[in-house]
């Protein structure tokens, strides 16, 4: 049982589990925080960005000034943004048999794995995961491809050069691994390798293990996975939530009795309670709009936005915001809003029942109908005609490096009436804002992360009681900025095993059993003997047949017929020779009775000595010694075979044969 850890990001995991004879990749998250080192891609020519000065080294050399630009004391790479891929060198990824995806945020590196590594296996994911994952990828590709960048910077990645750069570029890890975004054809090819699964569906992998997705409560179609054989059970817990939001609630019971529980995807903001944050979001939004300002919400096109729209639906009338337009701008805005309404079976109970009324499960349908919420593929086209201020705009990307959000940051950044509200927890908001400084716009950080917090984790672990817990190293110590908060770490007994990027863990669990089937004919031929009440034994002579990781005991071949005629004997090599069986013995020898028996049979000088492990019966006259121990009996006599046989038969009288 080995775990290869390919990602260092606790919420965007990518691990490979070697279990029995299978190689299973658990999620393939893409760490996009690397894009924060790049300049934003403006949709419309931005004079401010294009006039940024090139970066000059301390010694005055300017060879990097085309690649690196300086903005308010920060240095950014002026190039197409690049992403930090999971580790590809730790093991040969072409040997991966299957990839299990737990939610749509954790599959963004999929094209890099399936299209670049020789991967030939299958990917398993639920339908909403695939559909929404496709939307996220489509939006990503679209936002980057529609702003072609002439140049591509690579000089700064040179190790010698990188050493000279200011932080954070100097400390950026694995820059040689950073890759440009994939293309739509690659996305399509990757998605075509996915096989759809439903919750609790059991999928056999090569007869060796069975994998099952379970609802994890975090997002539409999000799942945890059970990977089990007959005697071992590994649970993989990725982004999960116990809060009542839109998805089906988390299935905790099925995680019970795991030998190993791999725990990833906990909340990134353990100190922020999502309810409080939603309140904060609404209050700040209302305050801004009432003062005549605009609100910008950088967000993903799916996920928390559904819950936010639902909150706003209840809130806007009471807050007197009915006349303020809400805009949702994304190339996939329409599909996202519509998909959410059709995945009824993946929704929480409340929303499912609405479908039978029939009503749309999410109230954003009504917002759209009443024209309070309008959605557009981009700022070009219809949007510019409808655009009214003050307004609220939801748009991507939360990193503020590409997508329509860049335009709004440039447009609204200069006025202190406007507010940008960060709700996605994936990026540091200060880093995201760095290339827009100086900024007059108000910034509010309301990260809404519904994934498990540490209190919930400790309850969960108490409930499901796994033998061992494995988690990213970040979860085994308090957050670096709050070192006194010892409550913000995974607390369990035995302490969790931790992993970091590019580490291989041997999981502390030894496999001890294997299941073997007995063919009915063979089973018929067995004659069990009860040796203790409730325990019967039988000897089995059979041929072990192993195929597709399944083991079957079959009847042994008939002993070769004695040649009836004088035909030439056929030699068959594949049938093993079957030797006659010696009987097996069981039972114990009561020394007193044994001595009596010996005396009955004429041995008069019997002497018994106790030893540490049993007894020694001494026949002095015959110079013979019988050593009786729990698991062996030895008769030691000198060249007196008849005596030995006689003694042996006396011993055997006390034992059972079968």
């Amino acid at each position, binding site marked *: 049982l080995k775990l290869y850890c390919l990602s260092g990001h606790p919420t965007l995991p990518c691990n490979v589990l070697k279990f029995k004879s299978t190689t299973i990749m658990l999620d393939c998250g893409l760490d996009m925080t690397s894009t924060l080192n790049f300049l934003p891609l403006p949709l419309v020519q931005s004079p401010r960005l294009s006039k940024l000065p090139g970066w000059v080294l301390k010694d005055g050399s300017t060879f990097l000034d085309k690649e690196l630009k300086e903005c308010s004391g920060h240095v950014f790479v002026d190039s197409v943004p690049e992403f930090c891929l999971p580790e590809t060198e730790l093991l040969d990824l072409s040997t991966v048999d299957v990839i299990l995806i737990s939610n749509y945020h954790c599959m963004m590196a999929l094209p890099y794995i399936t299209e670049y590594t020789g991967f030939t296996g299958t990917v398993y994911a639920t339908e909403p995961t695939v559909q929404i994952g496709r939307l996220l990828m489509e939006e990503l590709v679209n936002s980057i491809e529609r702003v072609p960048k002439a140049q591509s910077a690579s000089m700064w990645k040179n190790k010698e050069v990188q050493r000279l750069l200011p932080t954070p570029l100097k400390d950026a890890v694995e820059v040689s691994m950073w890759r440009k975004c994939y293309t739509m054809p690659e996305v399509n090819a990757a998605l075509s390798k996915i096989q759809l699964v439903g919750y609790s569906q059991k999928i056999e992998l090569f007869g060796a293990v069975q994998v099952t997705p379970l609802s994890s409560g975090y997002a539409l179609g999000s799942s945890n996975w059970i990977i089990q054989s007959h005697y071992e059970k590994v649970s993989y817990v990725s982004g999960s939530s116990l809060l009542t939001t839109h998805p089906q609630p988390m299935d905790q019971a099925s995680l019970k009795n795991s030998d190993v529980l791999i725990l990833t995807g906990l909340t990134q903001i353990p*100190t*922020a*309670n999502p309810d*409080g*944050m*939603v*309140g*904060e979001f*609404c*209050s*700040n939004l*209302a*305050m801004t709009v*009432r*003062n005549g300002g605009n609100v910008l919400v950088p967000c993903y096109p799916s996920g928390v936005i559904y819950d936010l729209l639902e*909150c706003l639906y*209840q*809130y806007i*009338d*009471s*807050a*007197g915001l009915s006349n303020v337009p809400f805009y949702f701008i994304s190339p996939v805005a329409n599909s996202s809003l519509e998909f959410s309404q059709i995945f009824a079976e993946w929704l929480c109970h409340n929303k499912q029942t609405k479908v039978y009324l029939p009503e749309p499960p999410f109230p954003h349908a009504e917002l759209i109908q009443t024209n309070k919420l309008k959605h557009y593929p981009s700022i070009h086209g219809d949007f510019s005609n409808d655009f009214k201020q003050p307004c609220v705009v939801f748009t991507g990307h939360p990193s503020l490096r590409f997508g329509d959000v860049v335009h709004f940051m440039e447009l609204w950044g200069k006025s202190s009436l406007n507010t940008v509200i960060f709700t996605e927890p994936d990026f540091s908001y200060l880093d995201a804002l760095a290339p827009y400084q100086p900024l007059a716009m108000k910034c509010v950080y*309301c990260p809404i992360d519904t994934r498990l917090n540490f209190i919930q984790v400790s309850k969960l672990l108490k409930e499901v009681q796994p033998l061992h817990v494995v988690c990213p190293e970040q979860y085994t110590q308090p957050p670096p900025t*709050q*070192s*006194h*908060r*010892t*409550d913000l770490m995974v607390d369990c007994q035995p302490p969790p095993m931790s992993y970091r990027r590019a580490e291989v863990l041997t999981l502390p669990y030894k496999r001890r059993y294997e299941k073997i089937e007995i063919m009915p004919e063979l089973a018929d031929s067995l004659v069990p003997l009860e040796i203790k009440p409730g325990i019967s034994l039988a000897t089995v002579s059979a041929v072990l047949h192993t195929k597709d990781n399944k083991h079957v005991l079959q009847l042994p071949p008939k002993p070769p017929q004695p040649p009836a005629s004088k035909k030439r004997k056929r030699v068959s090599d594949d049938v093993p020779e079957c030797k006659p069986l010696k009987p097996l013995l069981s039972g114990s020898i009561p020394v007193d009775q044994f001595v009596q028996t010996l005396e009955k049979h004429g041995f008069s000088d019997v002497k018994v000595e106790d030893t540490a492990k049993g007894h020694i019966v001494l026949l002095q006259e015959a110079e013979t010694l019988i050593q009786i121990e729990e698991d062996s009996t030895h008769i030691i006599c000198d060249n007196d075979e008849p005596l030995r046989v006689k003694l042996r038969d006396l011993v055997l009288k006390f034992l059972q044969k079968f």
Partner: protein
Amino acid sequence: MREDRSPGSDSLFYGLFLGNTWSLDPTAKLVQDNPCLTEFITSVLALPEPSPSILSFTLRLAGILAASENRFQLLQQEKLLVRLFGRDGPLNSALWEDASVRSGWVEGVHSMMHHQPALRFLCDGGGIDVIFTLQGDPSLFVASAAGQLLVHMLTLSVESEMTKPLSTKDCDWPACAQMIIKRIEDSLQSSSSSHIEQSLKLLTSLFGSCRATWTEVLWLGIAKQIESFLTEETVQAQHMLANLLLSMAWSPVFCDTEGGFWALVTSALEHLTPVQAGPLAVGLLRLYKCPQDVRIQALTVLLQPMDCILRAASQPLEYAGLLDESVSDPATVESLLSSKSSCVSLLCQTLAHLEELLSLIHLPVDLPYTSLLHSLMTILQFCNGFLSPASPLGSTISRILINSFRVQRSALDVLAALSERKGCDTLLGSLFDVLLAYLESPNTSPTVLKKTFQATSKWLVRLQELSCSNSQWQQTEKILEDVFLVLQKRLCSPCWEVRDSSLEFLTALIKCLRDQDEFRQSLLSSEVLKLTENLLEDPESYVRASAVTAVGHLAFITYFAPESPAIGNQYNKENTVAKLQEILSTDPEGFPRRAVISIFTKWLRQGCTGQLEDTERFVSRVIQTVEHDLDWEVRLGGLELVEVFCSQTICQLGLPKCPYAPVSSAVTSSIHQNESLHIFCRAKVFNFLFQSLCDCDKPVGQRACDILLGLRCNFYPVSTLKDSQGAEDSRAGRSVAWLQRTLRQGSLAQSFPTDGGNGVDFQDPESMLLALGTIDLEELHDELNKSSDHVEKSPQSLLQDILATVGTIEENEADCY
């Protein structure tokens, strides 16, 4: 009664019989004159299976009858008492299983226990054993009554049967007392904790109710045993000891003694666990007669957890000290605080005790206020995870306390109470840092936020007082600015509880600080005004009500202030008044309407409604809006407004407030009278008042009657009341007579005249003057006060209440009828 054996027979009826029809006549005459009483008892006893409620009644009845010695003897002669209370009575029958029978027995015995024969009757018949057993009765009422009965019997026995005063050396108790004391001593020495507990309870209530010197003699006999409970861990009686010692401490018999008793209290404070000692300590600190050293020790018990918190959070050297280390051993408290199960409850209990102490106006001890405040701030910072503790104990406590709402609430309560005490001023800056962190944090729960608002408003008042004296305006301004910033955000919260408590906070601030310039400036320069006015249209009625109150108070700063600042708001004074009027007439919920009427009254009281003519128009409009309001509290509020209006008008027009004041000139006085009468008529005051006399909700009628009586005093000096008989000739006379008749029938509301006819012209000054003089308002007043609840419980009122509650949905209406 005897034959009514239906299971539903109502014991209330028997209760009424016992309670109301009995005028206790100590002679035996009552029983002799009413043979039916003994016959009744006899026949109940003859029943093969009397119902438990009849039997219980009979026991209580017999007890009451036997309360006088003469009647007791009479009943004894007929052997009724033995058959009821003796061994052969219900005591040994199956009916004893019924708690009401046992309760009747105890009550009966208690009632008769007024003379020695009754005492002897019970003691000789073995009744004491029964009562002692009943102390452990499964029915708590019976058990408690049994305890009270024993106390009563003991007191009666000692006080009626003693021939010479007791002394410690020669305690010759009367027989009955001897029996009870023996039982108490025996059970104290037993190993049964329930017996010990019962005896301790009994002693507690004895020492609490009886302050005679013999109680000390009794105590000296058992003191050793009770002392041993403190040290013996095998007996679980410690938790009862605090109550016992407290009740003794209040008794002059014990608290004035030297040594002994207080030594025991000291020992109790040492030996009881902090949780058990807490109530004792707080009780002792409220006591004036407590010796100083005991007081210090009690204070130590209460402050130790706070001290422990302070030490756990700070470096050893920087620890300022809440307690002198020589007087306290912190080990027990430390171990309690570091355990998850006990930490929160110990802290909450300690904080509740401290709040109780701080709420006393005269506190007999000086608390170390600064350190206490420091400790409270530490607790609050532990709770929101803002404090990094410096010791291992600190990290354990911090882990337990993070997000504990209970502790947060209790600590904030104490914090609010502490604001009244002087001596914490050095910490003000950091205190507001803590409070603001709570106000700003989105993780603060609505109930904790409410408490934070309460504490903040109290400390802001304190801050303002201080900055007046030491001119630290800058700090105050900065804090106010921060407070208003966070208030703005909270006013926009999607959670209505938060919006509501934010508005309450604003109102509280305006009430206390509206005269302070810095406060007014900070408030007016923030967005709070606009946001508050927006909340008048909140979907939640509580929030609208709070918004009305807040806007009403804001008006004192904005529109009614002498140098009213120009604010570019959508609302000016007229708009605000119109908006509140609109809420009063159209809001579907009662709370906002009640808030409006009380704000209007407040405005009127403070003379903010303009000149007399404006006020007249204003009051008239309000009256017409509220007189048909479905909510009686709104109508009552309307009457209050009318009352203020009337007294102000009369004052302004120069009538003497006091009817006995010398009248300067008959002419001027009658001119003023006329004028005010005209004003009241024009404002339709009488219309409203007379109509309210017949209001289906009694408080409204009573209030209207009071106001009318007050008016009459103004218009008729005592001697000049008119005779109603002679006045019927005029038209006004006839109509007033009609009014009087209608009022007597209590049906003015239905037959209220819309126009002429028989009716009264309520706007005609002459008729009204006549009505005031002739209608017997005193009689009406008595009528309204006398009838306990017939008006409120009348079917019509009930029906109207139901209709008002369910609204006017048609199907509901049908159901109601």
